[in-house]
């Protein structure tokens, strides 16, 4: 039994990504999308928290939203993986429930 957590806002604007990371359980995955993707960029003030989470849980970023914001895979924190919309669907079906952190 596991949960897919989605976060769609920057951690510099909202506390959703931070709160989400504090509530992860083993087997859970995080999908960062829309404005949230800026939080997955390396060398930010938030990067250490993402990197720590990525050691224990799958942390994914939506490629289409990265591209729209000029980000490439090389910009990402180590351990963060890229998924496209098809991968988004796979994540939803691979977990028992989805929690959208709004």
């Amino acid at each position: 039994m596991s949960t897919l957590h989605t976060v769609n806002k920057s951690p510099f604007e909202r506390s959703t990504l931070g709160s989400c990371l504090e509530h992860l359980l083993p087997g859970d995955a995080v999908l960062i999308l829309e404005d949230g993707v800026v939080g997955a960029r390396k060398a930010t003030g938030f990067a250490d928290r993402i990197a720590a989470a990525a050691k224990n849980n799958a942390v994914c970023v939506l490629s289409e939203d990265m591209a729209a914001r000029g980000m490439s895979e090389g910009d990402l924190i180590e351990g963060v993986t890229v998924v496209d919309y098809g991968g988004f669907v796979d994540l939803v079906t691979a977990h028992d429930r989805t929690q959208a952190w709004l």
Partner: protein
Amino acid sequence: MEEDGYQGDVCKRFLYVNRRAPYGTIYALESLEVVLIGAAFEQDVSVAFLDDGVYQLVKGQDTSGIGMKNFSATYNALGDYEVTKLFVEKESLAERGLTADDLMEITYEDEDDDWAEKPSIRLVDRAEMAALMADQDVILSF
């Protein structure tokens, strides 16, 4: 497929997650409305209050100066709709300088225990909140 379509006798575990203070946005009030709808369909409802959502339960709310309806009394009516599980995160309270004493007294009457009046609010730590989330069929965020 079994999960397709409406089945009147299916009871799922619903968790409503409240993370915002009341009045600045419509989320807290909308959450209450949806909680009551879920209860009307006789689902197993839990309500979580974390981050700024804990402010929704602070006692002594007075909205007379801002021209908005004070809906805080509604939380104490949830018990009448068999919504008796309000989970409040301890860390969220502490981060905001609040304790359980700052929260409204919210109770329900337990029909399985000679209608004894019992507290609806249950304080949980962050790990327990995570476990609560993992125990649900459906999670709705507000």
